[in-house]
């Protein structure tokens, strides 16, 4: 059992708190992604888990054992780095074998069995005798994954392993990663700034910003119910629309809402915005019930052949993501309707309803 508990961990570099009082846990056998923009502290948090950095305060526990002061070699974690580093003069299987050689508790036969197992899982059997120098970066990274899991440590850490790879190598690596995690139920923490990767790989995603964890949830909860405006903006391509709203007697009014939204019973004070995903906004050429008129100001073809348009509604810009081409040309009037059920209400950047 290797549950990871992060107990009020803070890491300061001078005045900057790279990791700011994080208190959470990753369950045993779970694939957790640390997702966030550059400089949010996700790599620092991971390096503390690996033992490459010491927390300024707080404790880290693996399976109930306090490892805060243990050196990296004694923590029994595997780690895959951004850059795969291997012994270039050794073959693939020798590289997989080497870290275990220094572990007296593993017999040579057992080592060979583990190496073979990893080679099978990674589908790298034919390359076992190849030298690292002859492999491309994607294959090297696969070997690095193999090395990290071959030791059968209960925790494996991944630090943006696909950052330096081409698209094809990246897909191969993600495929390999999936196979490995399916076969070997290790607790995995995966750091990435790529939301697609996080959505694909993770059981749960921890969204980080400015050294804090904003939300720790399953990928779909994180996407459809972001707890903060930042989460809504960061997830999705493009991110959520945020439109200013005001408190009125009839409820919450906004330029893009034909009818005011019923206000929740206890709405805190503060600046109100409503959030709506671009793909949830409906667009048509003719006015319909609950629609508001706007001017189509920009359009582009987005991911997977979907159309991405920007519509100006009464001073607010709304991004709309539709399957078909927009019904009118640039500069013409369209009618947008926003289903109330899909609207999320934020006060000062925090979700209060929806």
């Amino acid at each position: 059992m290797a549950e990871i508990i992060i107990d009020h961990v803070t890491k300061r570099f001078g005045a900057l708190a790279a990791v700011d009082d994080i208190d959470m846990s990753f369950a045993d056998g779970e694939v957790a992604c640390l997702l966030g923009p550059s400089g949010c502290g996700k790599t620092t948090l991971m390096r503390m888990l690996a033992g490459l950095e010491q927390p300024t305060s707080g404790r880290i526990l693996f399976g109930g054992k306090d490892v805060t002061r243990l050196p990296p070699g004694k923590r029994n974690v595997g780690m895959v780095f951004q850059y795969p580093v291997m012994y270039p003069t050794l073959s693939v299987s020798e590289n997989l074998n080497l870290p275990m050689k220094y572990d007296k508790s593993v017999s040579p036969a057992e080592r060979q069995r583990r190496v073979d197992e990893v080679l099978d899982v990674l589908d790298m059997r034919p390359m076992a005798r190849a030298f690292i120098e002859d492999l491309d970066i994607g294959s090297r990274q696969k070997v690095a994954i193999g090395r990290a899991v071959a030791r059968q440590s209960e925790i494996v850490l991944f630090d943006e392993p696909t950052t330096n790879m081409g698209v094809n190598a990246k897909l191969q690596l993600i495929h390999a990663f999936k196979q490995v995690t399916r076969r070997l139920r290790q607790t995995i923490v995966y750091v990435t700034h790529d939301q697609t990767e996080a959505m694909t790989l993770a059981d749960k995603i921890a969204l980080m910003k400015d050294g804090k964890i904003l939300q720790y949830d399953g990928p779909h909860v994180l996407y459809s119910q972001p707890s903060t405006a930042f989460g809504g903006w960061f997830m999705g391509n493009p991110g959520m629309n945020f439109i200013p709203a005001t408190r009125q007697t009839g409820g919450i009014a906004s330029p893009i809402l034909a009818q005011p939204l019923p206000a929740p019973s206890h709405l805190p004070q503060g600046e109100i915005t409503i959030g709506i995903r671009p793909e949830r906004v409906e667009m048509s050429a003719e006015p319909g019930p609950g629609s508001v008129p706007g001017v189509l100001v920009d359009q582009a073809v987005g991911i997977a052949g979907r159309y991405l348009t920007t519509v100006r509604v009464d001073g607010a810009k709304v991004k709309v993501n539709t399957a078909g081409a927009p019904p009118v040309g640039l500069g013409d009037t369209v009618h947008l309707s926003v289903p109330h059920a899909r609207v999320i209400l934020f006060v000062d950047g925090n979700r209060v309803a929806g």
Partner: protein
Amino acid sequence: MTRLRATLYYGILWLISLCFFAPIGWIVLSSFKTQNEILAMPPKLLFSPTFDNYRALFANDGIFKQIANSVFLSLGAVIVAVVVSFLAAFCFSRFKPRGTDFLMFLLLSIRMLPGPAVILPVFLMYVAFGWKDSHLWLLLFYAMFSIPFSVWILKGFLDGVSTRYDETGLVNGGSWMHIIFKVVLPQVRPGLIAAFIFNLIFVWNEYLFNFIIGGVNTQNIPYALMVGTYSDGGLNWTFISAMTSIYMVLPIVFIFIFQKYLLVGMTFGTVRGEV
């Protein structure tokens, strides 16, 4: 046309090389001549070689000890210096202890100091502690003089080795010893060899301190050359030529063996690749 130009270039290069090589050729040839042949005008290029000079040189028992001293002192001092410097440079490069920059400057300042400036205090110290005429203490003195330069050159190389090697090693269960000697050391081999050769040449040529804080037991080849040159009243050319020819052998052998590393080393690690 280009062929002609290439031939011209090579011709000039050969000419320059020969100019530089001429004194060495002269001294080596002279070591096989008699005193009269050495001083003959014009110089004799055709002569019947004689080994009398070497025979005379080795007839003196002291010479073997002086050569042995030179080899022992220079190799010993340089090995001590390179080992110490490598570990020190690794520490400076990786752990960056407080005041690293100041310490590095301090090390360099030792190098800026001309040797003769510290002769008196060093002499007094060696006399007071009874270290004079001792192989060990002379060796350590030379090591001390070689360390600053070695630390500088090796820190440059070590800074060029990414810490991701260390981190991968650490996480995969390697000890620091494993990382220092098995992972990082092979990558800075050119730096180690450059430091080794430069310091070897320095200690091999060292005369002043051997004369002052050494003694009868620790005499090296430069000392022997200095004393032997005037031993028979005038300049003893046969002795000089034979002794010098032997004197040159060790540096030439080492430079020949390690020449491919030397270019990288002499550019102080500026020519280096990552990953």
